[in-house]
């Protein structure tokens, strides 16, 4: 799109500079229910955010209406909004990094493959699930979704960047029943390469997830060694990394604020942000147009850096780390592709070393049960009791409680096997010294 007119109007209206960030996604999704396509969606999603600077302050509007006739209203809203801003920081629109590591991982074949071929696999997934186990009483949903997107940034200093990506996923959710007990389970497979999808593997994991929950009981309330699976580790790690945000540090609301170059996790823990690796989350510029780079946030337990955007970096007179991400009018701190360095033992080998402990597969209620600032958490979980080096029985309706920052220091072992999650994190299993579990 040509924004020349908008830039001109902004200048004529007294704005120092403006910036337009936009993303357009085209998505298709199909859901199968009882052998028939139950729903199908076709989406063209456009979001555009325009920020302008008036007297050193940002005014922001997000709108899909980018017709010339609407430009005046856009500029008016930017001016009205900027006029009330009081925060002392000077608004910055970025002129550009010296070098960008632009590569294209966009998989055109994914988009070109006819939808019929993609849908055919849904019938096969449903059939295999049906035939697998008589305890599978209902296939709640089998779905396919794909999305291709373009993200771009344009500003009145002439910076113009754009990136293209695509991904798809297959998912299956089932209900299983034994005696009077009902449990649900599911699995998602996500990639940008259709050839990587293995129907049998998705079916097996879906069934395992649901069936393994049957017969769950509570366990005795006490402290147990805890083995977190990658999904539950991710939930906690997300909260930990949120504390490395320079925004939280500068506001004195991060528990890690005085911990730079100090031990914040066990020696075996190395955490990297890898925006430039080849996956669907690859990003070579952040939402402020700054070039991104791969970095170690925690190196062998030592906190190496906080994450900065332009504003928080300017406050400390340093360079941004290319972590300016945000939606809805505010560029805050974010990251792409968090990676925890795996260990040497497989998950199964780790289990054999545990005399009595709990394998946690799922942590629920994180938005409420975890206080990111103090790190205290009390969360409902499902999992398995481990006894004498073996999985003994499923557990349900138990809660685990502890403190996130202590937990990071109490990581004893990380597994060799890791998993790439929907949010771009790639994590191993983590064995924690112990956590308080309340059951019966």
């Amino acid at each position, binding site marked *: 799109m040509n924004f020349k007119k908008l830039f001109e109007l902004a200048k004529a209206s007294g704005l120092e500079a403006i910036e337009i960030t936009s993303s357009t996604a085209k998505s298709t999704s199909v859901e199968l229910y009882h052998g028939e396509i139950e*729903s199908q969606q076709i989406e063209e999603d456009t979001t555009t955010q325009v920020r302008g600077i008036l007297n050193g302050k940002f005014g922001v509007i997000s709108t899909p209406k980018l017709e010339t006739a609407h430009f005046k209203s856009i500029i008016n809203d930017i001016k009205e909004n900027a006029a009330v801003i009081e925060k002392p920081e000077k608004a910055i629109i970025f002129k550009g990094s010296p070098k960008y590591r632009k590569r294209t991982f966009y998989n055109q074949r994914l988009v070109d493959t006819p939808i019929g071929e993609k849908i055919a696999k849904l019938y096969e997934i449903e059939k295999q699930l049906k035939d697998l186990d008589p305890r599978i009483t209902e296939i709640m949903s089998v779905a396919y979704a794909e999305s291709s997107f373009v993200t771009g940034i344009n500003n009145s200093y002439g910076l113009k960047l754009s990136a293209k990506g695509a991904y798809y996923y297959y998912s299956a959710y089932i209900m299983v029943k034994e005696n009077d007990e009902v449990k649900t389970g599911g699995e998602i497979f996500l990639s940008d390469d259709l050839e990587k999808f293995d129907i049998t593997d998705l079916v097996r994991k879906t069934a395992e997830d649901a069936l393994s929950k049957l017969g769950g009981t509570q366990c005795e309330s006490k402290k147990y060694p805890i083995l977190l699976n990658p999904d539950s580790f991710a939930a906690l790690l997300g909260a930990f990394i949120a504390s490395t945000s320079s925004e939280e540090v500068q506001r004195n609301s991060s528990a890690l604020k005085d911990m730079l170059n100090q031990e914040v996790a066990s020696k075996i823990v190395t955490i990297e942000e890898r925006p430039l690796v080849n996956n669907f989350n690859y990003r070579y510029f952040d939402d402020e147009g700054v070039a991104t780079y791969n970095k170690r946030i925690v190196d062998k337990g030592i906190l190496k850096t906080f994450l900065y955007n332009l504003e928080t970096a300017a406050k400390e007179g340093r360079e941004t780390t290319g972590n300016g991400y945000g939606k809805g009018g505010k560029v805050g701190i974010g990251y792409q592709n968090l990676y925890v360095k795996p260990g040497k033992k497989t998950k199964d080998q780790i289990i054999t070393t545990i005399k009595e402990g709990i394998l946690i597969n799922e942590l629920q209620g994180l938005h409420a049960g975890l206080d990111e600032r103090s790190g*205290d958490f009390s969360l409902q979980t499902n999992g398995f009791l481990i006894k004498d080096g073996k999985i003994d029985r499923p557990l349900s309706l138990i809660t685990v*409680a502890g403190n996130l920052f202590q937990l990071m220091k109490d990581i004893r072992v990380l597994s060799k096997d890791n998993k790439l999650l929907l949010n771009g994190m790639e994590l191993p299993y983590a064995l924690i010294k112990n956590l308080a579990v309340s059951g019966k």
Partner: protein
Amino acid sequence: MNKKDYLDILNAGLATGADFAELYFEDSKGKGISLINGKIETATTNETYGVGVRLLRGVKSVYGYASNLSKTNLLTLISSLAAAFNDTRAATVEELTLRKNSCQITKKVPFAKINEKVALLKAASEAAKNESPLIVRVDASINENNKVFTIYNSNGEIIKDERTYIRAFVIAMASKDGKLEQGYAGPGSLKGLSFLEEKDFVNLAKEAARLAVLNLDAKECPSGVMPVVIGNAFGGLLFHEACGHPLEASSVSKGHSVFTGKLGERIASEVVSAVDDATIADEWGSYNVDDTGMAGERTQLIENGILTNYLIDDLNGRRMNQKANGSTRRQNFKYEPTSRMSNTYIDKGHSSVSEVIGATKLGLYAKSLGGGSVNPATGDFNFSCSEAYIIRDGKIAELVKGATLVGNGAKILLDIDMVANDLELSQGMCGAASGSIPVCVGQPTLRVKQMTVGGRGGELK
């Protein structure tokens, strides 16, 4: 575009066997302003503009949306959706007529003046800050959203509606000896800025600060199985999550809910009656018409423990052979609408609050809940408490923190043994398949005979 254009588009959607076609045009505008520690931090405008296209054929649906509203683009979109059905035309729409909204719960309210919002936020922030020297940070914000939509459907109807939401937030954080705790308030309404003055937002901010400070010295909550008294207003979140969601036709119709096939049966103890009411004037979860254009209703869900109705959307109603009851909702044009709650609450009972507390020898008083989640198929839920006390010998004793309530929705309904008469509603956002929508939760103070409580404070003694 004119009426003929809309007819052309709808009829293109019906060409391959769909029996119903709907265009949902939205042109909404929101304004948000936020403050941190007394200084205005952000002010933003947010416009939502586009069309959602829905085709139904029996119990199948296809949905698409776009922000490019040219006739050509909409014809292309609706035809690619129609390609999902490969039959011959089953319906045609000849004419479109504007329908008058059948009830007038909400009125258009203009956006508040930006300076008035700034003044109110500053007053609230200052009141919270002045509550205690231990308050280290106060965040406050006001968000308004003027939602405007027009529906054209193959029943020949044009339905227009407009409503303006306003919601304010305050979060106060207190710190001592390296510990941080917070208190929160978030009132909302369809009434405009005057609502926040009536609700005394400044005082709510003070209360939030007071709670944050109190929580600094709170002990860790003990764990175990115990009687739990759940407070009124936001305590209703538990009913919303654990019982409200499983009463939505989206899970009932496919047998994915614990309440499927239970109409007319006892699902709760006799002291429990529950209602979903979209017709309360100016209330946060109310509406004139739902997002398919059907008038909002008051639906009795449970009467004296007996299941009397579900929340039914048009599509799932077809599968259940029951009529929709004005509860088909969506966040905006990007979401296919489905059955959702409006203002959903447990109705008031006959006990007084002091009777409920007084009848409890040793247990937990969960005065306010923080948040939680539920699996609609099994009814298993978990909730955290934002303000909780231990009850000793029928009296409210020490404040505790980190309490989690764990249980099963179907079971807990049968375990409610006392319901007080202090019904109050509380505003929130509810996220589900059709997006994030404004709803009220609510209940009077009530008691659950026994429940699993999680916490780090050891055994309750």
